[in-house]
């Protein structure tokens, strides 16, 4: 099964987003990660790498990120990691929800899950 990692500058935001996504994609493994490791705002590549390992079971991992430096740190983590991971170019919460649902499909692949996450850009809320 494809795993998900949610990276935010705020650990709280990452955990809450994972909560919301988990509601919709019950079985999907979703690992939240965020914060600068000192209780502040930021992202740390080592922590992201640990999150990748935590959800990786060989079927690939899709990474959701919030802002610019989370993207760069996720990039670094993916380079260091053994997991076959890819960053989705998607809004972090909406993409995580979409991805969590997509990952429960029996036909899900890393790229189909990423595509669904990226489709969250086009969600009309109103």
């Amino acid at each position, binding site marked *: 099964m494809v795993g998900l990692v949610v990276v935010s*500058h705020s650990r709280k935001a990452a955990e809450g987003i994972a909560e919301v996504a988990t509601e919709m994609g019950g079985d999907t493994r979703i690992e939240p990660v965020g*914060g*600068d*490791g*000192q209780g*502040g*705002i*930021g*992202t*740390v*590549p*080592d922590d992201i790498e640990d999150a990748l390992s935590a959800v990786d079971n060989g079927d690939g991992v899709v990474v959701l990120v919030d*802002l*610019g*430096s989370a993207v*760069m*740190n996720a*990039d*670094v983590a993916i380079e260091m990691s053994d997991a076959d991971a890819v960053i989705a170019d998607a809004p972090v919460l909406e993409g995580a929800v979409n991805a969590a649902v997509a990952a429960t499909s029996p036909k899900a692949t890393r790229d189909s899950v990423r595509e669904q996450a990226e489709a969250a850009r086009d969600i009309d809320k109103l």
Partner: protein
Amino acid sequence: MSDEGQAVVAAVEAVAERLEAERSYLTELDSAIGDADHGGNMARGWNAAAEEVAGLNDPDPATVVKTTGKTLMSEVGGASGPLYGGSLVFASAEFEDGITAESAVAFAETYLEKVQDRGDAKVGDKTMVDALVPAVHTFKKSVETDDLPPVEALAKAVAAAKRGVDFTVPIRASKGRASYLGWRSVGHQDPGATSTLYIMEELLSVAQEQLGVEEPAVDAASPTVPDGEEATED
């Protein structure tokens, strides 16, 4: 090798001290167009790196640079973490056969390449790239075309970086947090470009100490590091 390693350790310590001194100014710059943490990010990261490399046992220069980069990557929770840290780790390989004028140019180019790879910023986006590009181009040309001794080439690179920093003031940010401000970023100096300049200034001053400023044709391939205080403490 060991002398070169100690020279780089000294450089890391000098950078850490300088960034600690500039902590509040860098944060002031970042508070105008970012999230007011660049001073803290840099000081914390480089202090940790200085501690880390001081503990290395007779390291070669590549190891010191790599360790510095890794420490920055884990200690700095912002954009400057992967940009400075990741690029140092990547470029450190250029020093595996020691520090020469040639390998220093290769290091500078590889470092710049990685920063741009990672952050996708071009000149004019109002980032550290605006300081780095003129610095690296000037360093390379000074060494390769003008045949200047490394320390002189580095001095020219620092002057070029300074012009890059000044250039960030009147332009609009297109990358990083400052880009969220759009036109309101115009008129403010970029923190990352500024810290890049400070780091280069410290590298220059350590190089001047280590290689001797007066010696005009010093050969960086066989550096004459004195058995001085800076070079021997571990």
